């Protein structure tokens, strides 16, 4: 018997050791070859009388198994039939079921038949399908390594645990724990998994396989608990038990509270657990496979997998990186300016193991910036996520200074000083005087064109923009902006750096606002314009939430502050002179900032009032005096469409003007930059899914009703006429 992805050894006790070890991969995942090999191995164990049982282990130091290769699921190029997709979706379920029953009927097992034992030796992370094979094993033992992580993260990419996870977890850990685990996708440590009955034991790392074998040897005749005649769900008898009814009723509300009806995979996970808990496991697994299939067949899931998993990983691995440049050494990074952005950049850089030279006007100011890291570390320590020792090591990596000489041996500069061209020019000059010849200078400007900043540099070919979002430690996206003179080196260095701090990069053009802010600003302005039109503000923000935005645009404008909006408007007006095009809310911003003193959440409030006692925010009661409610309110559908399409219009314009170069980046930037409804897979995926023609038609209708700002760009119109999709072309 020959295998490509596993090693199969039988010891003198007749116990097989199935070691999963995918060649040329750092981590094990289920792919077509492994499924085939594993099927053969299970058959061998079951059919060979000399083999008494088996231990499943991993050949990777990195962990047990990370789940399924989503590229396998995401690729549906051949247009298979529903029946074919379903057959494919049942494959692992059938395989695991065969492994746990020995191919015997559940009815016979419940009357006393038994099968050969399989034990899983969990040496590190076991996620998704990697955990599900363990759950189908008769015994699960985990190493005491802190690397052990147990979880079912499928929900995060629009899927459900489709290899028995939604059925075996409730049967082991109870319905409530199963709901939590499957619908949040968060993973747990070995201790918690043990307390939830998901694993049997935790043993020293080096004894792992031996302990698993020991158990197999001692338990030659086994069957799963759910194949026992007297099996009961922990904590209740399944969904028809009156004690369980409130749990399900509550779970539906909690799901809606989180998903706003935008994440069908969450609903289907709950359905799997509910329906599956009423029937025997064989039927339950069939139900799970059907719901899993329904997700695989949906555009929404495919879009989510494509953007949130495949394209995100590709971007993080450096999709846009010039291959000619060798990896850029990044052991020490100079961060110029210790204000809010600089402090955040220093934090994420040091957290990732790099040394940081944090420079500001004087050491006190730099220390103030470092306090940000101290504060976040203390929070981490109090939550048990960080040890004191680790925190001290991390803080020791941040050197605060006011002396430019301290920058002489850094590998990269990130400048985050005050947004004033003169200040920046001075800093560039002083820095370039001390740093090494090949060191890349990156500016975190959000308002000044990189090309014009680079004019202050003696080596504009090594100059680039790295645009972070605030708060830096939380926001996952980074925009990288090459200037006209930027060469390959700064782009490679920027991408290597973003990879090192584990954020998601997109490369965009050097235009005012770059990509994300070019969409966010008109989106927020549209919401403010709706207030001016007399639309109920609660309706506006609630509709945005219903759409899948993480916060309403009015609440978001309060956060980013009316004052900032006002300043951007004033500077654009000044800069552009006669060419300035009013936003439609210039007067509203002026009223809020100048007349009402409502400059934003942190300064006088905004659309909302923020009680000083930390109570829930509520809409400022005075708002209706200045912007009276219209007698005729639009429907929720109309408001949602406007909020969605104003963003699509801005994205389409950016794409059309090549501010963002490909649909992948446009989608990643939207979701991770400003929280564009993740269920869509991003605005370009959404337009592809509804069809470019439908997009253009609806955008035109909105333009006619509300203004030209909704109109699709000419290139989209052309695309609509020609047919086809943006992604297919990309």
């Amino acid at each position, binding site marked *: 018997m020959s295998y490509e992805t596993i090693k199969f050894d039988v010891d003198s006790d007749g116990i097989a050791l199935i070691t999963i070890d995918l060649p040329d991969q750092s981590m094990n995942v289920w792919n077509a070859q492994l499924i085939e090999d594993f099927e053969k191995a299970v058959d061998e164990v079951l059919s060979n009388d000399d083999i008494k049982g088996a231990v499943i282990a991993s050949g990777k130091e990195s962990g047990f198994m990370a789940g399924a290769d989503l590229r396998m699921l995401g690729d549906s190029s051949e247009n298979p039939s529903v029946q074919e997709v379903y057959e494919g979706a049942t494959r692992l379920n059938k395989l695991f079921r065969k492994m746990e029953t020995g191919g015997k009927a559940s009815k016979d097992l419940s009357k006393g038949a038994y099968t050969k034992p399989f034990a899983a030796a969990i040496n590190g992370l076991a996620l998704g399908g990697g955990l599900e094979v363990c759950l189908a094993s008769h015994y699960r033992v985990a190493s005491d390594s802190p690397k052990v992580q147990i979880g079912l993260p499928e929900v995060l990419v629009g899927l459900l645990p489709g290899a028995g996870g939604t059925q075996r977890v409730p049967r082991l850990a109870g319905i409530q724990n199963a709901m939590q685990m499957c619908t949040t996708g968060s993973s747990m440590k070995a201790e918690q998994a043990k307390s939830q009955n998901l694993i049997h034991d935790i043993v020293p790392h080096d004894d792992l396989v031996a302990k698993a074998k020991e158990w197999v040897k001692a338990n030659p005749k086994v069957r799963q608990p759910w194949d026992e005649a007297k099996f009961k769900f922990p904590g209740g008898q399944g*969904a*028809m038990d*009156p004690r*369980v*009814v*409130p749990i*399900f*009723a*509550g*779970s*539906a*509300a*909690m*799901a*809606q*509270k989180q998903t*706003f*009806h935008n994440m069908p995979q969450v*609903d289907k996970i*709950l*359905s799997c657990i*509910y*329906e599956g808990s009423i029937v025997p496991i064989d039927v339950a697994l069939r139900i799970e496979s059907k719901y899993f299939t329904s997700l695989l067949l949906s555009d929404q899931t495919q879009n989510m997998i494509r953007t949130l998993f495949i394209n995100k990983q590709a971007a993080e691995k450096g999709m846009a990186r010039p291959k000619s440049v060798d990896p850029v050494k990044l052991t020490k990074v100079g961060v110029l300016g210790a204000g809010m952005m600089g402090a955040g950049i220093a934090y994420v850089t040091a957290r990732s193991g790099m040394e940081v030279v944090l420079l500001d006007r004087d050491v006190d100011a730099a220390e103030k910036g470092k306090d940000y890291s101290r504060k976040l570390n203390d929070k981490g320590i109090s939550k048990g996520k960080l040890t004191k020792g680790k925190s001290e090591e991390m803080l020791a990596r941040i050197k605060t200074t006011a002396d430019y000489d301290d920058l002489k041996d850094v590998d990269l500069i990130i400048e985050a000083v005050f947004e004033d061209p003169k200040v920046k020019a001075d800093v560039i000059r002083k820095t370039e005087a001390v740093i090494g010849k090949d060191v890349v200078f990156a500016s975190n400007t959000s308002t000044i064109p990189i090309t014009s900043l680079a004019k202050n540099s003696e080596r504009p070919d090594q100059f680039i923009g790295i645009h972070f979002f605030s708060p830096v430690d939380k926001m996952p996206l980074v925009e990288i902006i090459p200037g006209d003179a930027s060469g390959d080196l700064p782009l490679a260095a920027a991408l290597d750096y973003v990879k090192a701090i584990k954020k998601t990069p997109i490369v965009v053009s050097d235009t005012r606002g770059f990509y994300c802010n070019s969409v966010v600003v008109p989106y927020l302005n549209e919401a403010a314009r709706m207030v001016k039109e007399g639309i*109920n503000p*609660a*309706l506006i923000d*609630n*509709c945005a*939430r*219903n759409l899948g935005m993480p916060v309403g645009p009015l609440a978001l404008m309060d956060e980013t502050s009316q004052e900032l909006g006002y300043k951007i408007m004033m500077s654009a007006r000044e800069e552009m002179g006669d060419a300035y095009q009013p936003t439609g809310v210039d007067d509203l911003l002026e009223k809020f900032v100048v007349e009402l003193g409502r400059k934003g959440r942190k300064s006088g409030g905004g659309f909302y009032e923020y009680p000083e006692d930390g109570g*829930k925010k*509520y*809409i400022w009661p005075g708002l209706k005096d200045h912007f009276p409610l219209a007698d005729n*309110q639009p429907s*929720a559908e109309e*408001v949602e469409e406007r909020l969605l399409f104003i963003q699509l219009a801005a994205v389409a314009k950016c794409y059309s003007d090549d501010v963002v170069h490909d649909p992948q980046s446009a989608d990643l930037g939207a979701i991770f930059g400003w929280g564009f409804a993740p269920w869509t897979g991003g605005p370009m995926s959404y337009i592809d899914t509804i069809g470019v023609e439908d997009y253009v038609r609806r955008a035109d209708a909105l333009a006619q009703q509300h203004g030209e700002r909704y109109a699709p760009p000419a290139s989209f119109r052309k695309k609509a006429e020609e047919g086809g999709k943006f992604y297919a072309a990309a």
Partner: protein
Amino acid sequence: MADAYIYDAVRTPRGKGKPDGALHEITPVQLAAQVLEAVRDRNDLDTENVDDVILGCVMPVGEQGANIARTAVLQADYAQTTAGVHVNRFCASALEATNMAAAKVMSGEADMAIGGGVESMSRVPMGSDGGAMVSDPAVAIKNYIVPQGISADIIATKYGISRDDADAYAVESQKRAAKAWEEGRFKGSIVPVKDVLGLPVLDHDETVRPDTDMQKLGSLNPSFAMLGEMPGFDYVAIQKYPELEKINHVHHAGNSSGIVDGAAAILVGSKEIGEKLGLKPRAKIRAMASVGSEPTIMLTGPEFVTQKLLKRAGMDKKDIDLWELNEAFASVVLRYMQAMDLDHSEINVNGGAIAMGHPMGATGAMILSTALDELERSGKETALVTLCIGGGMGTATVIERV
């Protein structure tokens, strides 16, 4: 088509629906059997003439399960030929049962039938039957299902009904119920409940509190605020009603219907059978209707079923002299009064479920008997009886005196 007439209407008093309630020792079958016995005995009825008994029951499980109507028919010693069927239209079950009895008479299927209902909420508590509507995530999520109390609070929020409005309504309901009892206005319908020894255990509605005032009600905490936050039904409500910034939780135990035990029965028959048996009809069933309405707000069905019924019957609002709407929650009645432009003096004139309780499967027949008694007492002609219903429905009946 034949006309259907009401020949009699009886109900038990309502006992507090808790283990310390007077009727907790009485099985639901006994409750139902006692009202059937009363119908028979009061009218000296040869029960061979009763073709069918239709009883509402909202928790038809356990001792209320397996067709409690046929069970009660057998226990009440009706003729073996009298059939029995159980129906569940949630809170309007007994009115629906009466409408079905009337329909059977009108269609000629039956000469005489009994509609009514029973619910021992102390013995078979709410929620005992589970049900996909609340527990199956596919159903609950698709339809934005929230508990009824949240729905009542959505009504209050959406239609500007304040806590004070709701409390003031409740105070008045208690006053009216107390006065009605004092004046013996329910006397004609009440059948005191007896125990297995034949001794009386309850002869009055147990939960009426005539001393209720705004201050007492003001001290009660809202009942549904917690559920709104965790697991989060308010968020579900706002997703369905995004025009609402938040949900005002105005309802509490004092301005919502009480949990009680009880049973009721309405004897319905054709004109001919009444003449044959020498029975005098008390009212004619003029019109009946049911309707579905938006399920999240759930409890606004009465408005829509009223419009539907009036239209189908070719009637007008001013043809109705007396209005009776189940007091499931104060906001339900207050919204109905708003929508139908009614004054409180025209509706629920003898109080309602906020004071006397709402034995879910039986209430429809109870308030029908209350309306009939009131028509006779006041000399009015026509009454419209309606209830709000779980899942978003409304059922209504118009009766007129003959």
